[in-house]
């Protein structure tokens, strides 16, 4: 498959991850489907069709059932055929009784919300036949809709009646604005109740992403262009895991004052993780819909497990015991220690932030390039636009690499001090990757400028093409190595001989290459560049660097392993 955003092919348009166009890339990719609003609506309609035809209920009732069972047709069917009466009672689907209602014969009825007496035809009732006037219904529905997604499980206003008020009734009585909100909640429920589907977190983006079961990689690219981690919804952070990212982001939070307050005064709901502030009342907490999880404020355990067993409702033994064992002080202590390592933090943070701003700039450049500059270049160098894809590829590679590199600094921050071998190896890989990236970016920016500013076609454009394409693929390989190594937790590290420490990230400045304008800049590359960086302390280089692709080859090899270029050329 190629990367062109696929047309509306309903559910089958599986976009692949960012490393998609290379056959030599064996890294696993996230498998996912992007859902537009229309896709979601189609799926909802399909599920409703499925349910109402099988269960012989109205479409509205099918919607009520599906929302209760998190949009799983099979769960609706299972529960319904196991015990229909119980399901009906739980969701409030009261069966229409054939007996006449209490108001039979009365021409006028009193609305028990506004106390007005009105002609019967001006009153409305759900299937339970509790009549209220239209304006009170509208008010009731308005309040419910403005209270949040709980309006999707609206019940009859009568205080002891649990009859569900379905979509058809809500929409027939709601104001235009409320109806829109209600539709919004209906649509959202499909994503928010569904564990396999999540909204793209980009501001204003209305796509949802469904992860295909079995996908082990979470980095996804939405159709809006936003790359994010499906699991934690932060920006894509491969190869660093979500926990590290969460810790890092929390640490960086510009609103750290706010964060401190939230940490000190709220607890996350044990189920949906939203922060909750307890301002009054008993220890029995109920999270707001759609979560509705009931838990104990003290121990954060399920409320259903409380009662006499935990020493009564007002005392939670589990909390008391855990507190004595010191479990609750652990987080506190860790926070304290983190504060003390401010210096180390600043080091990593600066590099993390610099890479981020580099990435943002590169991304802007890429957009500018695709919008206007590529035309320019095409005209000046007399090349068809279709032949200039390598420039955009190079820039895209820079963007991606800056992203990866950025996160490796968060990774480095949390790498344990004791694991010196791993740290050395990590810094070596990071240094290599960063070094390669610097060369690529320099070529993509500076050299490109020459061709953009030229008066006419330059003779060495093809050389530029070869060089930039070569650097792109080499840098990609470096980063693939880095990603792979970090993803398997640096498990390749050989504990005995510690690899060269000169490859640390700080070494970039000194070993930075000025890439020769000529294609055959091999002598410079191998002498002062990477080869010397790989020495184990002695003067003998252990590798020679290929002049064409810069790959580090064993001294014994006469031909480059990577591009088959003959040594010395």
């Amino acid at each position, binding site marked *: 498959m190629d990367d062109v955003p696929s047309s509306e092919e309903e559910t089958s348009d599986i976009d692949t991850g960012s490393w998609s166009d290379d056959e030599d890339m064996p890294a696993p990719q996230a498998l996912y489907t992007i859902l537009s609003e229309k896709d979601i609506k189609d799926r909802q309609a399909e599920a409703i069709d499925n349910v109402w035809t099988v269960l012989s209920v109205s479409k509205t009732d099918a919607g009520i059932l599906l929302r209760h069972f998190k949009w799983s047709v099979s769960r609706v069917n299972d529960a319904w055929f196991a015990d229909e009466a119980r399901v009906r009672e739980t969701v409030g689907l009261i069966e229409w009784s054939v007996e006449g209602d209490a108001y039979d014969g009365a021409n006028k009825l009193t609305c*028990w*919300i*506004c*106390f*007005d007496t009105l002609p019967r035809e001006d009153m409305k009732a759900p299937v339970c036949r*509790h009549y*209220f006037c239209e304006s*009170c219904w509208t*008010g*009731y529905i*308005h*309040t419910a809709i403005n209270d949040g997604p709980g309006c999707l499980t609206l019940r009859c*206003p*009568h*205080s002891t009646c649990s009859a569900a008020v379905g979509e058809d009734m809500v929409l027939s009585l709601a104001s235009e604005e409320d109806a829109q909100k209600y539709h919004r909640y209906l649509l959202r429920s499909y994503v928010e109740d569904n564990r396999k589907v999540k909204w793209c977190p980009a501001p204003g983006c209305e796509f949802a992403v469904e992860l295909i079961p079995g996908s082990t990689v979470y980095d996804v690219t939405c159709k809006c262009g936003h790359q994010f981690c499906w699991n934690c919804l932060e920006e894509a952070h491969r190869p660093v895991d979500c926990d590290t990212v969460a810790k890092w982001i929390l640490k960086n939070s510009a609103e750290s004052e706010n964060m401190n307050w939230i940490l000190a005064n709220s607890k996350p709901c044990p189920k949906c993780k939203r922060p909750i502030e307890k301002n*009054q*009342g*008993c220890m*029995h907490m*109920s999270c707001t819909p759609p979560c509705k999880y009931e838990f104990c404020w003290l121990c954060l355990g399920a409320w259903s497990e409380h*009662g006499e067993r935990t020493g*009564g*409702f*007002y*005392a939670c033994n589990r909390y008391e015991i855990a507190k004595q064992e010191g479990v609750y002080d652990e987080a506190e202590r860790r926070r304290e220690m983190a504060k003390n390592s401010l210096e180390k933090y600043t080091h990593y943070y600066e590099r993390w932030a610099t890479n981020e701003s580099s990435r943002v700039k590169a991304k802007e450049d890429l957009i500018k390039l695709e919008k206007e500059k590529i035309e320019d270049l095409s005209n000046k160098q007399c090349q068809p636009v279709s032949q200039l894809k390598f420039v955009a590829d190079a820039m895209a590679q820079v963007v991606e690499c800056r992203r990866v590199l950025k996160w490796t600094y968060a990774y480095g921050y949390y790498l344990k001090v004791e694991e010196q071998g791993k740290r050395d190896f990590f810094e070596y890989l990071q240094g290599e990757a960063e070094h390669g990236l610097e060369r690529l970016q320099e070529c993509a920016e500076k050299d490109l400028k020459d061709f953009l500013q030229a008066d006419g076609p330059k003779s060495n454009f093809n050389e530029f093409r070869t060089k930039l394409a070569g650097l792109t693929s080499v840098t990609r390989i470096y980063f693939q190595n880095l990603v792979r190594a970090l993803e398997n937790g640096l498990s390749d590290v050989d504990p005995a001989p510690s690899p060269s420490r000169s490859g640390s990230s700080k070494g970039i400045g000194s070993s930075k290459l000025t890439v020769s304008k000529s294609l055959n800049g091999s002598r410079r590359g191998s002498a002062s560049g990477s080869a010397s960086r790989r020495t184990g302390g002695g003067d003998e280089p252990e590798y020679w660097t290929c002049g064409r692709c810069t790959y580090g080859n064993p001294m014994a090899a006469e031909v480059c392993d990577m591009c088959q270029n003959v040594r010395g050329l």
Partner: protein
Amino acid sequence: MAASCNSNLPRRIIKETQRLLSEPAPGISASPSEENLRYFNVMILGPNQSPYEGGLFKLELFLPEDYPMAPPKVRFLTKIYHPNIDKLGRICLDILKDKWSPALQIRTVLLSIQALLSAPNPDDPLAENIAKHWKTNETEAVATAREWTRMYASGV
């Protein structure tokens, strides 16, 4: 008719007020304040066979702007020893929170509070110490409640 002199007051509140005054529920009185017709002074008699028997409890009740879509705000002004009522007089009662329905009324709310006095529920407590007392030694807790009733709720 009333709509002209209380132009901001919904008809429902006017009708409820009229009915509260003309047919008061047994043991309960509620009258609106003169300055603010949404603010009610409430008296509830301690129910028979309860530790609050013989007491006269003063409460305040306020109807918020979005009443009856939102529940009224009710608070005890008289000190009371009860597991579901805290020292500020706040009441832990489901219909005053998530179980509120616009088809409920001031009258039903006050009747529910009266019933709460007859049947304290220490399993969903607001005042933890009192609830604990109730669970560990009910006789003693009831005696304290009686004592408090005598001390704080006997003369108004």
